[in-house]
């Protein structure tokens, strides 16, 4: 008799699973939200997260009005590095356009531009709006590159004219960009977005799983039965793993087919480790559900995890540049490891040789959270 009470009872465990599925079935609207919302979010945020800077608006004040000056403008706008927004005729005009945000960069070519080229003393002025560092850096590097190339080509021509045939530069570079050769931000952002969205939906879904029963009063009956905390917690976990997986599949399909993000690594590894992450998120949700007294509290706690994780996980900014303490905080969030896994598999095609550490961390998360949840859950009023 005593033995029977101590043992994990699969009938009781299964009864919870069955009941959860029944309740989910009776509330199809919630199920639909759980399945459709992630897809909508990935679609919406996927477009919003496109951080590739296409062309930068440029104003030109061409005081020189010569063949050379027009050639320089050509160089700037030829390959869509800059978009020629307008020609201006004064600093005031340029200031006004910068203030308004119509342009990010202005190119000012002085009167004696072509004359001075011959004596190697020509200068042009470039004004950059530095308020958005990303844009500013991009504008700076593009304009410097273009100017350098243009200078080199002029120099080459002059050397040719002087019958010197030394055309080659002392050092040539051969750059090879790995993993994401076109450097499109979508390839980097969409995998991470999938992780973030899954975490959000799963966490909110399970954060209510137990606290709902407290609030509805049904927990008062359950705690008087012989059900064991672990049977209850795991029984609640299983149905949500299914929903989470289904939802994950939808989101993955959107990422791959709609945004054309390809998986460099093994899809099986991706799915396997995603299940690990799903369970870790579910476990955190259940833990919240156990410590919260009502659904509102659970909601706040879920957000207290979700919002910081957007930044701390390295979803938006690289973690390397964060202060050590903040990095450590980020280390407490499963999403951090899952992002490394997602980016690793999607972009670099790495396998478990590289990702074993992240996988073990996720596994540890699951075990600790489940134990914490089961021991925090008291069969008491």
């Amino acid at each position: 008799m005593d033995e029977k009470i101590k043992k994990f009872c699969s009938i009781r465990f299964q009864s919870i699973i069955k009941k959860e599925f029944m309740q989910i079935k009776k509330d199809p609207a919630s199920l639909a939200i759980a399945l459709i919302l992630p897809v909508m979010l990935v679609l919406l945020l996927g477009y919003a997260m496109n951080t590739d800077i296409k062309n930068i608006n440029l104003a030109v004040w061409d005081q020189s009005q010569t063949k050379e000056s027009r050639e320089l403008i050509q160089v700037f706008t030829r390959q869509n590095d800059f978009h020629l927004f307008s020609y201006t005729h004064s600093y005031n005009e340029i200031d006004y356009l910068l203030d308004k945000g119509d342009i990010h960069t202005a190119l000012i070519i002085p009167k004696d531009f072509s004359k001075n080229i011959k004596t190697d003393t020509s200068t042009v002025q470039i004004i950059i709006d530095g308020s958005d560092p990303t844009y500013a850096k991009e504008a700076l590097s593009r304009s410097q590159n273009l100017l350098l190339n243009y200078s080199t080509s002029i120099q080459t021509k002059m050397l040719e004219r002087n019958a010197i045939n030394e055309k080659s530069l002392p050092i040539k570079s051969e750059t090879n960009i790995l993993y994401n050769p076109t450097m499109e931000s979508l390839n980097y952002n969409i995998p991470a977005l999938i992780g973030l969205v899954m975490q959000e939906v799963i966490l909110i879904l399970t954060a209510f799983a137990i606290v709902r029963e407290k609030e509805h009063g049904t927990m008062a009956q359950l705690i008087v039965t012989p059900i064991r905390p672990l049977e209850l917690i795991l029984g609640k976990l299983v149905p949500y793993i299914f929903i989470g997986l289904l939802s994950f599949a939808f989101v993955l399909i959107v990422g791959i087919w709609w945004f054309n993000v390809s998986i460099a690594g093994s899809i099986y590894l991706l799915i396997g480790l995603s299940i690990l992450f799903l369970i870790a998120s579910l476990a955190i949700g259940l833990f919240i559900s156990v410590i919260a007294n009502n659904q509102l509290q659970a909601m706040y706690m879920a957000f207290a995890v979700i919002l910081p994780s957007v930044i701390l996980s390295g979803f938006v900014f690289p973690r390397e540049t964060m202060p050590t303490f903040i990095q450590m905080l980020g280390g407490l969030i499963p999403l951090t490891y899952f992002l490394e896994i997602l980016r690793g598999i999607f972009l670099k095609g790495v396998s478990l040789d590289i990702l074993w550490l992240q996988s073990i961390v996720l596994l540890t998360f699951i075990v600790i959270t489940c134990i914490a949840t089961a021991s925090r859950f008291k069969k008491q009023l």
Partner: protein
Amino acid sequence: MSEYAIICEGLTKQFGQIIAVNSINLKIKKGTIYGILGPNGSGKSTLIHMLCGVLPQTSGYGSVLGYDIRKDPEKIKQRIGYMSQKFSLYLELTVLENLQFYGEVYGIKKDKLKERIKHLVEITGLSDRLNQRSGTLSGGWKQRLALCCALLHEPDFLILDEPTAGVDPVSRRIFWDIIQSLREKEVTVLVTTHYMDEALICDEIGFIYFGRLLVNGKPNEILKQHHVETLDELFIKLVKQEEASSIFQKGSV
């Protein structure tokens, strides 16, 4: 094995300043139908929660079916049936789904469970409502369902907290017929009620007021002892006495 289903010795529960259950001494023999009476807020539910092993006492000792309520609450839970004052089954599930769920939660095997459900829905008259959503049942029917759930695993001890409050006479009759039929199986029943006719059916009753057990014994003997005709009369008398003495006590502090 002890001959008592319940033993309380100085059992006390305090919520901050409020002493909800105040040093109760009580022994209930196995197979007894014991009725607890007392006005709202007198501590009946609190006492029951402690006996069910879901609310740790502040002080004192309590045992149910020989198990210490503080040390062995899980063993108690395996063997008691409990029906709470507030309906606490799943409103969105049907009658049958609720019964099946609770049957499985008690670890009852499939065939046995089927048989138990069939028997219980027959005696409670729920047979025609098996597929009705529990939330749409009216008061009396909800209570019948809750009673079925509490009896599924054939508990040795049944605890009912105001099972017939706000319930129609027919349902009340069915309830008490079932409770009385449990005598044959030597099931102990602890039931709280506000109805004096129900109290008279009990083998023994106790009256709780402000967390204290004022009277305890067989209904007829209690009437004789206190020289009153009806239980109503007795309880009004007791409440007045207590109020007078509590005013006196407050005055003296």
